[in-house]
């Protein structure tokens, strides 16, 4: 393969493989900004993945797939909200349970369907055609970056748009201001007449719905067969860490996704990169694959250490009441 082609493919992979992380991260940012720490991203994405895939195929429509993934994700959010907001359950434990629960649903539905009628994406033209790449006029003509960044499927663009929209919502609208107030100091928000419960319910559901879409994307990307080791494959957990890396800023999450994406795409493209640039990057092929597999998690650890050192007051996006349940009459 020529050098340009290899580089293009590498950039393409960075985006293609990692957009689910962006969905997970942006969804989790929205949830956490309401003061709830949802550790169930993995499970929520898995539920979105399996139901989005099945409903999308049966309806033969990508749109239905996206919508049902969102809905099923939001349903997971609803479970989380009922438990933590209304019933005051511990958020960490509820989130961990949701993770296990979501994965369980995934395997349960997947296995029972596989025995009977597992849908294959290519049989459903509505879904597979909808998932084709879209060339953005002009921009996609730029060498390397054009093909790498501007000829992706609709879900990639949707992810970017959602991230920017959530940023705008949080930082520029009154409702976003109120949401941040709820996450920072629910008692203060309550005292000025903001309906804390309603805000939490609403944003947990929307945030989890966004995660669900991320799961659906992942399912489509992983080809049409049911994957018995689960499509989500730990991405949900990286998303939780990415939230911290992005400092609870959805726009920064785009950047964070691509930084992680770089290390995620490296093992896929390592051998072709080494062949195309034997002098500069030949050493890439010598690195054992296990190290590549560990890279995203090593980077996660380094990032978490770095972000906890950088801790200037007022600059951190960490919601002050994150993880604490709010009960108005508490004394």
């Amino acid at each position, binding site marked *: 393969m020529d050098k340009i082609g290899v580089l293009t493919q590498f950039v393409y992979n960075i985006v293609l493989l990692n957009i689910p992380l962006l969905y997970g991260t942006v969804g989790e940012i929205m949830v956490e900004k309401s003061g709830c720490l949802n550790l169930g991203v993995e499970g929520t994405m898995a539920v979105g993945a399996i139901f989005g895939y099945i409903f999308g195929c049966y309806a033969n429509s990508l749109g239905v797939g996206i919508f049902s993934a969102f809905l099923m994700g939001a349903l997971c959010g609803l479970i989380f909200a009922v438990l933590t907001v209304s019933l005051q359950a511990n958020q960490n434990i509820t989130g961990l349970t949701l993770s296990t629960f979501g994965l369980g649903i995934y395997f349960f539905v997947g296995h029972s369907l596989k025995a009977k009628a597992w849908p294959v994406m290519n049989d459903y033209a509505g879904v597979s055609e909808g998932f084709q790449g879209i060339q953005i006029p002009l921009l996609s003509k730029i060498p390397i970056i054009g093909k790498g960044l501007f000829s992706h499927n609709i879900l990639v663009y949707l992810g970017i748009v959602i991230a920017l929209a959530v940023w705008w919502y949080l930082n520029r609208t009154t409702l976003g201001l109120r949401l941040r107030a709820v996450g920072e100091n629910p008692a203060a928000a309550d005292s000025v*007449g903001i309906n804390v419960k309603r805000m939490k319910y609403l944003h947990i559901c929307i945030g989890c719905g966004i995660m669900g879409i991320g799961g659906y994307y992942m399912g489509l990307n992983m080809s049409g067969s049911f994957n018995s080791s689960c499509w989500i494959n730990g991405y949900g957990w990286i998303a939780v860490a990415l939230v911290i890396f992005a400092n609870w800023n959805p726009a920064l999450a785009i950047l964070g996704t691509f930084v992680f994406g770089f290390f995620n795409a490296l093992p896929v493209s390592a051998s072709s990169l080494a062949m195309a640039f034997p002098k500069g990057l030949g050493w890439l092929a010598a690195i054992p694959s296990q190290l590549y597999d560990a890279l995203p998690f090593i980077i996660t650890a380094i990032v978490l250490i770095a972000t906890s050192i950088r801790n200037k007051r007022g600059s951190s996006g960490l919601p002050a009441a994150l993880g604490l349940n709010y009960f108005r009459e508490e004394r």
Partner: protein
Amino acid sequence: MANKQHMVQVQTENNENGQNYAIEMRGITKTFGSVVANKGVNLTVKSGEILALLGENGSGKTTLMNMLSGIYKPDEGSIFINGSEVSIDSPEDSKKYGIGMVHQHFKLVDVFSAADNIWMGRENPGFVLKNERHSAIEALASTFGFELDPRKKVYNMSVSEKQTLEIVKVLCYGAKIIILDEPTAVLTVQEIEKLFSVLRRMKEEGHAIIIITHKLNEVMDISDRVAILRKGEYITTVNTSETNEQELTEYMVGRKVDLNIDRPVVETTRPLLEVRDLCINNDEGATAIDNVSFYIRGGEILGVAGIAGCGQKELCEAIAGLRPIKSGQMIHKGDNIVGLSPKQILEKGISMSFVPEDRLGMGLAPSMSIVDNMLLKNYRDCKGPFVDRKSGRADAMQVIKDLEVVTPSADTPVRRLSGGNVQKVLLGREIKAGPNVIVTAYPVRGLDINSSYMIYDILNKQKTDGVGVLFVGEDLDVMMALCDKIMVLCHGKLMGVVHAHKTTKEELGLMMTGALDLKDKYEDKPAGIAKDTRFGEQEAKEA
């Protein structure tokens, strides 16, 4: 004032002018589990009036007000606003009825600017440019004589600025009935004056104001009428002009209380604790205590006066060994204690009880019982790896009995007790260890009169037993009555040590602001160094 009972029966909502009350609460009862916080309370406020709500700690003042602000719902009773009965189910409702409450613990979002804190609660604000919001808020603030920078972040604000923001916030929502829960507890004398002039202005504009405070002189100063609660029950409402502090205290406590503070004369001994040329840095690395020298004799109370945050906390922490010092000496009975661990200092008989602004922050573990908190200090005396609860329980029972701590049992978590009782437990434990020097900071912070006097008695008892007491306080009247000597700090610098019975409040005030420096008066020997020091020339040279 007409007979309350009669008024309820005939269902008249009019006061003598034929005008509706801004707020009328009738027969309000509220219970938390088995605890009755309010029992059949009646309360009325007119527009253009300041009502002071008076009561001891735990008498249910805040609970009653929280039923107006929508945080609690009354179990029984009814609330009328401008003559019509209302049901306040949430803070949202409360805001709708024009009630605004400034809570004792401010309800502000730290990372937001002042403007955002106000804006987050506006109804249908639409899209208004930031600059227009700012100028609107500034304009509103200045009509009431407030200074408020809408761009300033809350975490950069002083306590007084935060309070200003809280008041502007409720005014901005159009509140006509304003409730202030202990607004003066954390303010300086000048700030209180400023607050009161604003309150008078709001009263003239026709606002109804309810103010909760412990300080009787403030009640007499600001209020038109006073409503008194005792142990959750409504006692009476009196016109301020027809009463006096003594009568109010009796209503509040339920019996006669001697408002004079004793200062027993005790024969003093040689200095127990001597501090010389002490310099300490604060958390930010700036100088907190600058070249301060003083000494405490056995059998005397040395007061430390100063504006909040001028090094008192750092000084206490340094003596207790919790904070490293930069330079200087601290000598206890001739032994240098600089560099010793807190445990070693404790063993020498120096105990510290510091009551921070949030009251529970230092010294006690809130969710542990009184017994366990006692054990925190003497667990080391236990033999073997097991905890000896028996002695801890005996200590706890002793403290509960001696200091009249009101608690369901010795096993009740400390955070469930009211503020005064928590402070009694803290001080009781420190005294239990039999110290010879007690360092106590703000021991009566937020306490009602009865509990405060109990604490003064405890300190006087220790003094007559020959203990040296360092008393960091806020209220100058109290310090002048209780302490033998007062040392004044200003921005970490020693302004001089004066005899409490010879000085005046004005002199202390001038010293606190740094306008008067009495150190120069001592020509042969610098202020703060005893003649009969245990700390000889030799040691001073060596150090």
